[in-house]
């Protein structure tokens, strides 16, 4: 089962975990992205994710299917939150299970890197000093997006 969802509700890591696993699968990897209390040296109080929702749902499912195909698994679940989030809230959960662990890590990493590269979602941070601003982000599809800079 491939599962992809964009949600305004709190993300439950348990729900993501419950959507993967199979009798022949010996490895599960769960990734959680969590809202941090700072970014680029500024105190962060919370943030808002805006999405092109219809497209983001499609892209999320595409990414999950690509990851599954890469490692030959049929158990990938990805949930991305939109709306207002507080520090400590889970912004994204990626769960994968595979027969062996190498593939589970690979698929997990693929999903989160592709999300950073091309999911049509934008992040507006509310800073401790009262200001707000859109996080610069990455031109969709550009190589090297995601792991640079100060993003989680």
């Amino acid at each position, binding site marked *: 089962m491939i599962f992809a969802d964009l949600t305004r509700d709190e993300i439950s890591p348990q729900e993501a975990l419950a959507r993967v696993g199979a009798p022949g699968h010996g490895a599960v990897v769960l990734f959680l992205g969590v809202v941090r209390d700072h970014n680029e040296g500024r105190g962060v109080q919370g943030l808002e994710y805006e999405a*092109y929702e219809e497209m983001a749902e499609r892209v999320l499912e595409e990414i999950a299917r690509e990851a599954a195909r890469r490692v030959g698994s049929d158990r990938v679940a990805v949930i991305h939150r939109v709306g207002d989030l507080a520090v400590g809230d889970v912004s994204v959960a990626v769960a994968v299970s595979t027969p062996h662990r190498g593939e589970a890590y690979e698929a997990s990493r693929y999903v989160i890197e592709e999300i950073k590269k091309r999911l049509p979602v934008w992040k507006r941070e509310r800073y401790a000093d009262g200001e707000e601003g859109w996080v610069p982000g990455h031109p969709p599809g550009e190589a090297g997006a995601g792991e640079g800079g100060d993003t989680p």
Partner: protein
Amino acid sequence: MRIRTLFFASFKDLVGTGRIDLDVPDGTTVAGLVSALRKRGGTWEKLPAEPAVAVNLEYSELSRALHHGDEVAVIPPVAGG
């Protein structure tokens, strides 16, 4: 033909609206649409000349020819995850 264009996040703030419906000549490409949008003047001129775009919910080349009823989105740099 009539084309709906959507704006998000910083681009929405820039042009002051989340969407606009424009009549453009048949055969107009995405690049042509972007050019027409920028020619509206004011802050519209600050839209990038070659932004990332989606047509009907999929990333698209700027050279793609549009058809009546297509939904275009001008996509600012993304920051999900």
